[in-house]
């Protein structure tokens, strides 16, 4: 059993969750307290000892389903097994009867019956083949194709779970509730498929194909819609994390003025002699930051996340100004000034910023020219300039001379490119022309890289 725990924790570490030795020990103690057979409770207490950041919980749950798939009291050995038990309820039953039973189970929220139904459906429709190296998605598709869950949802909402449908609000509520229950059933189908896969191939092999990427490690440019939604949610906690880390660093850097009250109090343990002088937190001089971001199609999400992150830590700077462009440039600092939620401001940019001056294709040369003009004299030797984009300029003139000119007047220019380095300078990418005028050009594809860069800003 403890071996199973070790293997599970090894998997969590492969995912990227930090698990310390003392947390491993706590998890082992938790296993002594709650039996593995009480699966949901067991999952809760294991998570409580191993996951200390709620953005990692999804990844934990996925790994848990694999490593503790279908295990019940009394089958704690490690070999493939953990038989799910019951075969599809009853012998041959018609599809109609089957779906009536499902609707009943959903209406009553009868969890054991639902689990059984999910296993039955997988048994019957997934066409499971031993040793066949396909992922869960294939079996999921085959199972759900037969189930017609839309019809089940319809019938479930007709049961008026929330109340008599005599107005459109209650009608909508009935439907939402039906959908919620059906989507829970789909989760149970996924679990049942996972059980079968693990039985067939063992946890390690299945984990390799189901492992979740932590939000901060997702490649922003190639993220799926779901992944982008996860990123969106992870961004706020991530930026808070970053903000507090930076604030801590800043405070440590220098010490502030004398703190009289603290000093006097401390002196009492030395008979009133102030041996131990206390200082207030310091207020060091902060740099200015100016951001210029390409928000054309392919790099739009990356720009949005970066602007969100930068403004979330705006306290670190004495001033932040943000500009976005496609083939025109617009300053968007005002969006961030109007709300205390940088996420909301970043959203507004997509719909409200005025960035198309000509044909709506990125034109870096024109953007740089206009940007330098708009900045005018409002830059100093304390200004750091951050440019975000793939430098794909649609074969327009690159005009690096504007960057060269700007560099003379500021502290540093950094360029973050969300494309893999291997693609740089192919096709219409002209990053090489800008590189000589930047302090550094960095590949930045994930929130983790972005966070590392932003926190390294001097």
């Amino acid at each position, binding site marked *: 059993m403890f071996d199973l725990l070790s293997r599970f924790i090894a998997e969590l570490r492969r995912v990227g969750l930090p698990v310390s030795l003392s*947390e491993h020990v*706590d998890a082992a*103690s938790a296993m002594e307290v709650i039996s593995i057979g009480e699966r949901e*409770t067991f999952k*809760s207490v294991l998570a*409580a000892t191993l996951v200390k950041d709620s953005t990692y919980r999804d990844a934990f749950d996925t790994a848990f389903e694999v490593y503790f798939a279908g295990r019940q009291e009394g089958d704690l050995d490690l070999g493939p097994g953990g038989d799910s038990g019951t075969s599809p309820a009853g012998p041959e039953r018609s599809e109609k009867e089957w779906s009536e039973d499902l609707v009943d189970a959903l209406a009553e929220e009868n969890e054991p019956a639902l689990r059984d139904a999910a296993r039955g459906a997988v048994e019957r429709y997934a066409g499971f083949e031993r040793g066949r190296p396909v992922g869960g998605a294939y079996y999921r598709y085959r199972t759900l194709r037969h189930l017609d869950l839309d019809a089940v949802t319809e019938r479930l909402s007709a049961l008026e779970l*929330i*109340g008599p449908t005599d107005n459109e*609000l209650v009608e909508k509520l009935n439907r939402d509730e039906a959908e919620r229950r059906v989507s829970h059933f789909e989760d149970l189908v996924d679990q049942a498929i996972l059980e079968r896969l693990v039985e067939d191939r063992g946890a390690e092999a299945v984990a390799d194909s189901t492992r979740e990427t932590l939000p901060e490690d997702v490649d922003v440019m190639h993220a799926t819609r779901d992944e982008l939604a996860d990123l969106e949610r992870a961004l706020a906690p991530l930026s808070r994390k970053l903000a507090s880390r930076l604030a801590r660093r800043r405070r440590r850097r220098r010490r502030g003025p004398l703190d009289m009250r603290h000093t006097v109090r401390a002196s*009492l343990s030395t008979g009133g002699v102030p041996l131990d002088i206390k200082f207030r937190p310091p207020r060091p001089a902060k740099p200015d930051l100016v951001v210029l971001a390409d928000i054309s199609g392919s790099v739009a999400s990356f720009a949005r996340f970066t602007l969100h992150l930068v403004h979330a830590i705006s306290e670190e700077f004495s001033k932040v100004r943000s500009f976005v462009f496609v083939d025109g440039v617009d300053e968007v600092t005002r969006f961030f000034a109007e709300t205390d939620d940088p996420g909301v401001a970043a959203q507004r940019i997509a719909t409200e910023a005025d960035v198309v001056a000509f044909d709506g294709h990125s034109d870096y040369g024109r953007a740089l020219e206009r940007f330098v003009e708009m900045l005018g004299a409002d830059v100093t030797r304390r200004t750091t300039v951050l440019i975000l984009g793939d430098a794909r300029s649609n074969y327009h003139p690159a005009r690096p001379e504007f960057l060269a000119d700007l560099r003379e007047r500021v502290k540093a220019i950094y360029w973050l490119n969300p494309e893999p380095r291997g693609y740089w300078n192919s096709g219409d990418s002209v990053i090489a022309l800008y590189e000589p005028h930047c302090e550094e050009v960095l590949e930045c594809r994930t929130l983790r890289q972005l966070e590392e860069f932003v926190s390294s800003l001097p």
Partner: protein
Amino acid sequence: MSALDPRQALAERLGIEVPAPRFDSPAQVGDLLAGVDYLPSSEIAAVTFLADRLAKPVLVEGPAGTGKTALAAAVAAATGSRLIRLQCYEGLDESKALYEWNYRKQLLRIQAGRRADETASWSDLEEDIFSDDFLLTRPLLEAITAPDPVVLLIDEVDRVEIETEALLLEILSEYQVSIPELGTVRARQIPMVFLTSNATRELSEALKRRCVFLHVGYPDPERERDIVTTRVPGIATQLATQIAQMVYSLRQLPLRKAPSVSETLDWARTLVILGHEELGPDVAAETLHVLLKYQSDIAAAHEALLSGE
């Protein structure tokens, strides 16, 4: 679990008898809390049970108004313990959290000694002014030294600066406080400890390692309905069901600020006062502002739920 039993190990270090566990099972936690009108999810009950068995603090994190503070209060009430609360804020320091020497009194004592032309040595005097008599006990020390059963709540720990967190570490792992002038004060019993956080700031690894972690999210519609019926006397079941469901549906929308459980309860109370027994689009539209704080969120709710297609 003798060999690994963390409670036994801790009790030995503290030099006290191993206390009896507070709960028999997670299910019993659920029942006890329901007995004081707090309805935990099975996860909340499980982690509370675990924390007692491991003798570890619980770090409860989640959005505002989801019952984090209420959980600690409910555990205290359900176990017949006194709730000792440390409310955190920016600038909280040792003297407000742990203890403080009553230095006015100490100075008076020193001056009194001078005037009387005391011949007593400095070391006598020192021993005197750094004794219990001159010590002002703050919540953390109070919880440690309490002879009666207590639940310690360190509320909104994310509000203190990260340096201040260090003050908590010794208590959270060893249930003791070191006072340079007095020595180490050890707990006389093992209190249950809850820390709450809205995650406005990342807490230190050191703090998180010492705690078991509990994320409290929004309840599912069924539990929220039960919370509403428990907390709002006289509400019609039908109305409570519809309220919970409406709030659930609203939380699926991309709102700036999703409604919290406390806002659900406010809304339910409003509807009861207005004499409603069920929910319709007009009633909902007129009272939505109790639930949603931003105009843009209200508009989004109208669009999604109240504008019949």
